[in-house]
């Protein structure tokens, strides 16, 4: 089976969905002739032309709003925001419009669109090229949110997102674009939006993660298995909204100890919701405190590499946290 990078998996997903469905088009800054600043849409402009791969003006609000309007009347737009840090001009259109249209029209209108953006730190991007923004959007009912951690899921989830009749936000861990490689079957497949994935079976500690952090969690889980004999149950959430509460709870009941790893700011980050869910619905199974390992409460990942390294969880800090919890 061929092994490809995360970014190539995303590109293939878009290519295949464009080929399959003429309603699909892509817009965003530099997506056309440049092929995307990360090359996520490389080759698609030549293949499909300027009417289907549209270089947008430098205006994120409009990138999303154009998508909303086109989606309402039957197209399937894929709207790229160049960096998740720049999504905020479009915030009103996303949380007050896209998220509400189905509900506020009693189902008469829907918005089948994809908003995709690279997120996360570790690439020397500083305060405005490294942010995690999923918590802002996960809070608003009406938006589906997926965060792939590997090429197989990235391709499958993006294809599902295009076919979903709702607004789906796809946050792609940019540090993993070329770093994370994996096997992807050559034929047609999708990964359903919703189900989380148990990526390692274990009995001592359950570790929840998504995106780049999941990649590190797998490394940490292997380390603590080898050196400390700690057996980790690892859950790759993959879909943040709608949350797979069944898998989250079942995986917790196996161990009674939960560590939630996310690179976003600690306070009110996505993992806080997992913690609340576990303490509410799995209280009798708790064998230790519900812990979170996160970025600090500072508004962005600093540029200097010493500070960047301090900010980001990594396999060593994750392993320390696992050991701590296992020993409780």
């Amino acid at each position: 089976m061929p092994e490809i990078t995360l970014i190539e998996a995303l590109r293939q997903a878009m290519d295949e969905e464009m080929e399959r469905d003429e309603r699909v088009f892509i817009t965003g800054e530099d997506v056309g002739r440049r092929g995307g600043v990360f090359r996520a849409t490389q080759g698609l402009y030549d293949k499909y032309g300027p009417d289907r791969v549209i270089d947008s003006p430098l205006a994120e609000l409009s990138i999303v709003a154009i998508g909303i309007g086109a989606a309402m009347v039957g197209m399937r737009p894929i709207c790229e925001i160049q960096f998740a840090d720049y999504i905020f001009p479009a915030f009103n259109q996303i949380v007050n419009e896209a998220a509400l249209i189905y509900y506020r029209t009693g189902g008469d209108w829907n918005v089948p669109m994809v908003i995709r953006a690279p997120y996360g730190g570790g690439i020397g991007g500083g305060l405005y090229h490294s942010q995690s923004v999923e918590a802002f959007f996960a809070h608003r009912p009406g938006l589906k949110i997926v965060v792939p951690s590997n090429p197989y899921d990235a391709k499958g989830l993006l294809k599902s997102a295009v076919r979903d009749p709702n607004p789906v936000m796809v946050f792609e861990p940019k540090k993993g674009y070329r770093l994370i490689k994996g096997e992807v079957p050559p034929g047609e497949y999708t990964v359903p939006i919703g189900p989380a994935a148990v990526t390692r079976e274990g009995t001592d500690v359950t570790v929840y993660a998504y995106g780049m952090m999941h990649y590190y969690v797998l490394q940490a889980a292997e380390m603590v298995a080898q050196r400390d004999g700690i057996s980790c149950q690892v859950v790759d959430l993959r879909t943040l909204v709608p949350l797979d509460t069944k898998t989250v709870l079942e995986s917790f009941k196996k161990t009674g100890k939960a560590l939630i790893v996310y690179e976003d700011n600690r306070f009110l980050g996505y993992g806080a919701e997992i913690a609340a869910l576990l303490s509410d619905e799995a209280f009798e199974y708790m064998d230790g405190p519900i812990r979170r390992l996160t970025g600090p409460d500072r508004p962005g990942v600093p540029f200097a590499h010493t500070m960047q390294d301090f900010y980001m969880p990594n396999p060593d800090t994750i392993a320390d946290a696992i050991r701590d919890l296992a020993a409780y």
Partner: protein
Amino acid sequence: MATDLQTAHQIDDTGIDLDDQTLLEMYWQMVRARRLDERVWILHRQGKIAFHISGIGHEGVQVGAAYAMRRGHDYASLYYRDLAFSLSLGLTPLDFMLAVFGKAGEPTSGSRQMPSHWSSRKLGMLSSSSPVATQVPQAAGAALACKLRGDDRVVIVTLGEGSTSEGDFYEGLNWAGVHQLPLVCLVQNNIYAISVPVHLQMAVPNVADRAPMFGIAGAIVDGNDVLASYRVMREAVERARSGQGATLVEAKTYRPVPHSSDDDDRTYRSRDEVEEWKKRDAILRFQVYLRERGLLDDDAIAEIEERVRQEVDEAHAAAEAAPYPPPEDTLFPVFAPDDGA
């Protein structure tokens, strides 16, 4: 009445190709919207409904615009004052009454939205919301879809002059210019954004002065002249339909009532100003014109008023009698089910 209008503007019917029946129908639409609107004000002052945001004063530009588009074919993305526009597109007085009462069976949102938040897939009305101007780039997106698909639909989007200060307005019209979209942006300039007068809203005398910055056509029209409004909108719609791009149409009009039932316009303008503008009322002017054309007389006017009153009474009674939505309707789903389309 004719004496009062000597100082006001006459109806300009240059180049109008509408037959008598259509002219009378347009008059009826304007009266119908006005009487329905007036009835809802009464209901509010009686304490029977919680909120009303009115379109009184705007009937000329709205009916003119609605009749200039291909209803049932083109898309309309409207704003909260567009009662006359919506009725012309096929919304019924009962639909509107259900919304103001917040009753079950309200078709645009199941009474989840406040009234006057127009929406209907069947009638080609895109869903509208409360944050202003968000509809402009969305309408541009719908127009982009029409262009990409090669269908000959046009998208009309409306808003007030205050809303043109929002960034959404600029970003939407910028796309319309860059991609020569089949879009008509109709700004209904009624001089006040709630209480803020237009000279505090913009430094240019006309909203349409901004059209060149987007690379699109601009037009200014007397919004209280239903036929002039029809003509200008017709030109803009045909320009869009023939692939020649977008138009920013500014209709000059006036809002003789407060912004909404929660507003008190005595705090920011004189009664004299309001009374002056009432002399230039769109319905009054059109009535005088139709009388002069021999299409209306006292009997015909009375017959229309009676017909309209009956329709308003029926809608009012039916809505008042209708049940409220069950509380659990709050939990309508936020996601469309996957139908594999």
